[in-house]
């Protein structure tokens, strides 16, 4: 409607011949544009953009939720560390960098996940999460241990070492 109104108004006030000029203008090509010269300095070999990692190791914390929980945590062959957090939980802000470090330190040996309890309340309720932050460790799809509160990194490394050693 608005476009029709605009067009009608334009048609009423357009000077004679302007329509033709507009159409002709669309057909004019920039024939004098110079072609870009080939770059002589371009290097012959370039480093491949994607470097293949032999183990496909993930070195960052993965967001787990109710949709990907089974595939990410329950079916995972390596032990899985899961941090349950909430946006306005102060201690969660302290422990988050620790989990990030652990994901890098143990890349390939464990998977580190985090669950936002506001977004995935059913997962949190299923595992009896009450206090936040809580860190769970799973092995073979089974919850093995839980750690409550913002604990030092050494507490978590001790826990992890306990489960990557045994097989």
């Amino acid at each position, binding site marked *: 409607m608005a476009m029709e109104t605009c067009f009608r108004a334009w048609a009423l006030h357009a000077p004679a011949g302007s329509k033709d000029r507009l159409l002709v203008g669309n057909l004019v090509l920039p024939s004098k544009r110079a072609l870009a010269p080939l770059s002589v300095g371009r290097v012959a070999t370039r480093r491949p953009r994607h470097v293949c990692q032999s183990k496909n190791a993930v070195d960052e914390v993965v967001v787990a939720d109710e949709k990907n929980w089974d595939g990410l945590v329950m079916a995972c062959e390596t032990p899985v560390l899961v941090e*349950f957090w*909430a*946006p*306005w*939980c*102060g*201690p*969660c*802000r*302290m422990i988050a960098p620790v989990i990030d470090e652990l994901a890098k330190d143990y890349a390939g040996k464990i998977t580190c996940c985090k669950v936002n*309890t506001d977004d995935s*309340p059913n997962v*949190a*309720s299923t595992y009896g*999460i*009450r*206090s*936040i*932050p809580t860190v769970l460790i799973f092995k073979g799809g089974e919850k093995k241990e839980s750690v*409550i*509160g*913002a604990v030092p990194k050494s507490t978590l490394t001790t826990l992890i070492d306990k489960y990557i050693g045994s097989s």
Partner: protein
Amino acid sequence: MTSTVTTTVGCGGLPVRPLSTATRGRPRRCAVRAQAAGADASNDKSVEVMRKFSEQYARRSNTFFCADKTVTAVVIKGLADHRDTLGAPLCPCRHYDDKAAEVAQGFWNCPCVPMRERKECHCMLFLTPDNDFAGKDQVISFEEIKEATSKF
């Protein structure tokens, strides 16, 4: 216990024409913006209420804010959000199956029962002097809170 007063926030000052005659888009956009501004103002008020409560309670209970004041700021923001949405400052460092029921029960309304009885605050909002994470402050400014909580 801090008294919780429910305040009504509306767009009272915004004239709203009947939908049948309203021009498409403009009034609705203004209304949405006004509502957002209203919500922000309301939350700011709750943040200020919870900030004052926290300072007062820290002094009264001889506890101190965390050496890392962003922890303090985040918890206060969480309490303010719950005050806005639930009517009471429910502890933001717990997971609940039914928040409304928890508010009614009151156990985890800040200051929670463990804090009142044993000075145990797992949020690290109120820390006893012997706690490893305790700082020296019993004050935190509104600006500190806004700065610490605006990034997320």
